[in-house]
């Protein structure tokens, strides 16, 4: 074997190990959901059981926190998508100096630890006697998730031809029509991706939620308190369900993306023919 071929073999082996490192823990965690032991593990294997799924199904607190997670996620999407989109359009049209100034403030929340965001949100609303609760979790999460939406929409805006808006206005379109018919449709892919990321970021958020939630639970907080108070494989059952849900969502997104790619290629091919 030449040294070059050996190098190629080494890097391939490393990639395989890396993928195993990323994926095997999830497989082990999922597998432990079926093991009939009190303490979650896949070893020693004590036989196949579905009792952890049954336990999970009958856990009222889990259902409540799952509902909260979805409600908070939807609220975060509903608030952060308009804010992020508006901020991207705004920052795209101001002069360079104002732009980098605003940009700094807009990306700062992404680089701020969740605990700091959570505590500052709690203290700020406490000044107006707003008690802790999931409404504060929503606001705290929006403060950094809106930044992700802003970045996605801003990237998409770079490929926008502002001449289209001029043309629409010359043809007598109103301001609202320019926005609704010309600009927003161009931004749809970024807004869609932003909404998806916003929902998942919200659903998996722990740090901000922990400090702002008051007495309410979301799924992550529920899992966190379970891990502290007494672990049973019901958490594994929940983990497995969430992972499968994630895989389905990821595949659906990927398939949709590939379809669009193919459609775009077909359109491009048709355009060059003409």
């Amino acid at each position, binding site marked *: 074997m030449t040294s070059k071929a050996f190098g190629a073999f080494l890097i391939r082996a490393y*990639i395989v190990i890396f993928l195993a490192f990323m994926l095997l823990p999830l497989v082990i965690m999922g597998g432990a959901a079926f093991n009939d032991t009190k303490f979650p593990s896949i070893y020693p294997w004590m036989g196949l059981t579905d009792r952890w799924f049954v336990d999970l199904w009958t856990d009222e607190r889990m259902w409540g926190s799952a509902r909260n997670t979805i409600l908070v996620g939807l609220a975060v999407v509903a608030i952060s998508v308009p804010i992020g989109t508006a901020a991207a359009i705004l920052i795209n049209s101001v002069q360079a100096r104002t732009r980098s100034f605003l940009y700094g403030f807009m990306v700062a929340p992404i680089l*701020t630890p969740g605990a*700091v965001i959570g505590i500052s949100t709690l203290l700020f609303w406490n000044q107006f006697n707003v008690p802790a609760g999931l409404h504060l979790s929503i606001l705290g999460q929006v403060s950094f998730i809106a930044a992700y939406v802003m970045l996605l929409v801003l990237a998409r805006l770079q490929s926008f031809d502002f001449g289209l808006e001029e043309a629409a206005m010359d043809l007598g379109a109103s301001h609202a029509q320019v926005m609704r018919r010309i600009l927003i449709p161009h931004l749809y892919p970024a807004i869609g991706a932003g909404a998806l990321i916003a929902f998942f970021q919200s659903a998996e958020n722990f740090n901000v939620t922990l400090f702002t939630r008051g007495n309410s639970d979301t799924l992550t907080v529920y899992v966190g308190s379970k891990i502290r108070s007494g672990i049973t494989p019901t958490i594994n059952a929940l983990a497995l369900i969430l992972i499968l849900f994630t895989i389905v969502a990821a595949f659906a997104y990927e398939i949709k993306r590939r379809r669009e790619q193919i459609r775009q290629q077909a359109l491009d091919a048709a355009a060059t023919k003409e």
Partner: protein
Amino acid sequence: MSELYRRYGKLLTLIMILLTAFWLLALVIIPNIVLFEFSFESYLPVDQLGGPLDVYSLKNYETFIYSPIHIRIFFQTIIYSSLVTLLCLCMSYPVAFYLAKVIRIENAPTIFLLLLIPLWVSEILRSFAWFIILSFQGPLNALLLGIGIIGKPIRWISGFNGVIIGLIYSYILFMLFPVYNAISSLDSNQIEASEDLGAPLWRTHWRVVIPHAKPGIASGCVMVFMLCAGSVIVPSTLAAPNSRWFTEIIQQWMFEGLDWNVGSAYAFLLLVLCILFVSIVMRVLNVRLVDIAK
């Protein structure tokens, strides 16, 4: 700004400005100012608010300075977060390079999809997975014993070992993706030219690929460090009793001590730490904020 007004009219422009202003003022800037102010006030019962004791002081920060344990935990958090950041960079660089420049184009999406799965699984479940694997009678010890590599089970979750493994696993993808993005924008001809001119592999990387990937490396380092230093769940799941994390002290003040003022002083220290780290990385790697946050 006038451009905006001309295109979208008075009402829409106003709405966009209000939305952005609400975000930046009510959700980002003023809460942090309140945090800052809170950290200089004393914790007082309601009837003493506005009284002679209700003055700004450095008392909360003195609590930190006069507590050797808290200082030690603060520096341990910095050291281990930096270590994890470095390890993440070293571990993910070969993968990023391979995905960006070596692998056949049609295989890339499959590997990305595989990597997206752990990214979308929440942090708490990821550290829980390692809690199972590393437990004393867990699968890792069983495997190693079975193969015969070790003679007796190892206590993996001792000192900061568990935390380091959990942090790497939880945040390495935040390093991998930015570095990948940066490398894939490099023209492959430059790598070939370097090889044709006789540069050994390491020099091609050191002089061509890494300088080009600097913004991605900076972005990854900043994200990973911030996530590590601010991590709540990984240390509380995977730390041994004697190895504590700075966020746990903050939690103690907020929930157990119920002294929000000292809590906010500690939170502010964490924020300052992250700002310092961002500026050091920007200075050392000579990149701008626009390059980091993309």
